[in-house]
């Protein structure tokens, strides 16, 4: 039996199934989507409520050393919790990751930055804060985790 297209239905089915499979593989290996989509967003870390859970998810370790070599510049009193300017710098060597964490926010993990060796350890952004509390920054330097924190009073929460 031949169909209108001149091919038996089963062969036609196999052909189309194969092309769909190929398309799936191409999409999977990122040949269609641009770069930003390739690396996966660490969903579990963003659902975690505790700093230790976040660190375990991102770095498979939880031990942090407090240091003064990370400088966290942030206002002590934030009038508007929707826009709190944060600047993180550090004199630590070989920093490849920076994590900003605000424990009292509904989503405590704010951001995770991966810096290549050609970047200075410098990040500036604006974050949201729900309530008065600590802003914690964790840096990974040479495989070890270092942290620093600062208390911020929030006048109006911005979450």
């Amino acid at each position, binding site marked *: 039996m031949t169909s209108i297209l001149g091919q038996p239905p089963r062969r036609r089915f196999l052909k189309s199934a194969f092309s769909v499979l190929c398309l799936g593989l191409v999409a999977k290996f990122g040949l269609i989507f*641009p*770069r*930003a*989509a390739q*690396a996966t*967003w*660490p969903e579990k*870390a*963003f659902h975690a409520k505790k700093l230790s859970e976040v660190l375990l998810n991102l770095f498979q370790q939880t031990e942090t050393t407090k240091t003064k070599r990370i400088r966290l510049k942030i206002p002590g009193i934030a009038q508007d919790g*929707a*826009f*709190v300017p944060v600047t993180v710098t550090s004199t630590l060597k070989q920093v490849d990751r920076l994590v*900003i964490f*605000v424990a009292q*926010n*509904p*989503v*405590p*993990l*704010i*951001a*995770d*930055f*991966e*810096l*290549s060796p*050609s*970047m*200075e350890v*410098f*990040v*500036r*952004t*604006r*974050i*949201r804060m729900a309530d008065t509390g600590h802003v914690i920054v964790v840096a990974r330097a040479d495989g070890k985790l270092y942290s620093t924190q600062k208390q911020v009073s929030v006048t109006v929460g*911005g*979450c």
Partner: protein
Amino acid sequence: MSSIKIRLKSINGVTRIRTLIAHPMETGRNKDKVSGKTIPAHFIQRIVVEHNDREITTCSLGTGISKDPYFSFHFKGGQSGDRIRISWVDNQGQRDSAERIIK
């Protein structure tokens, strides 16, 4: 028009990258004032910064970043004429990218 603004400035061999992205960064907890319905979460999840097609910084973001996100980074090196490209993708699959040449 692109959602991304990029400003580059070279000072003593360090390129200051500043970017401002127009994006609502909805947390998914806000309610529409008129209809009373919850506005679905809509936020940027990944940002990639590239120097001549080589990734120099990637960021994973949650809803803790303010509306219309602003970032600044310092890139060591970068010659005049080099290209800095910034691209983002959000949780709804929308994406955008923009590039600028170092003067």
